[in-house]
């Protein structure tokens, strides 16, 4: 499932919702991305995420669908926020559930690597002086994709 929302989410509650009343899940892997206080600017104060409504959901759904083809997943959830976020708030959540750990681990890493380079989100960071700067792409994110291209 894909959810794009401005509201904060609760990782623990989402895990509980996925595993509730199921006995076929042997492994749950989660990744939570947080707003940290340093990036291109040395002293990041807040982050604002812009996105492309419509295309964002489509891209995330495509990424989820390819993960479900590649790995044996019992369930899969992607939540990505947009709008203004304060330090330490969660930005993105990926949960993968499978019978065995391997599929859940691999699928979660794949989902994040693809999401980073395909989902139309842009980060604007503000520093303590109130200056804002669009975050630049990282070549390491492009490199990370190569792992899945064989």
């Amino acid at each position: 499932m894909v959810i794009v929302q401005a509201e904060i989410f609760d990782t623990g509650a989402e895990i509980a919702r996925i595993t509730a009343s199921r006995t076929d899940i042997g492994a749950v892997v989660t990744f939570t991305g947080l707003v940290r206080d340093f990036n291109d600017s040395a002293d990041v104060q807040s982050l604002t995420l812009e996105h492309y409504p419509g295309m964002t959901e489509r891209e995330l759904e495509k990424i989820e669908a390819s993960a479900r083809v590649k790995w044996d997943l019992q369930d899969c959830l992607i939540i990505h926020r947009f709008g203004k976020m304060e330090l330490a708030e969660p930005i993105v959540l990926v949960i993968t559930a499978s019978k065995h750990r391997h599929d859940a681990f691999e699928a979660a890493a794949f989902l994040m690597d693809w999401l980073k380079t395909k989902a139309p989100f842009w980060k604007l960071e503000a520093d303590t002086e109130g200056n804002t700067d669009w975050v630049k792409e990282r070549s390491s994110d492009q490199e990370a994709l190569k792992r899945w291209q064989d």
Partner: protein
Amino acid sequence: MKILYFAWLRSKVGQSEETISLPDDVTTLYQLITWLKTRGPAYEEIFTDLNVVRVAIDQEHITGDTTLEGASEVAFFPPVTGG
């Protein structure tokens, strides 16, 4: 045709979307970019270095030139930085 701009391209152009009537001789993406550049200094500026501009046509990522036939929405944006 609807044209959308995101992130710093939106800030520079000063609007997030506009609806334009394509001139008859604009039938491909590259022709559209060339034509948009004639519309003012802000457009000239955002399309100066196409290495830092990404394109989606009808919400699908596009690389290289392509026909605009049947397209209703073209979006221009920087490389994505979500996650």
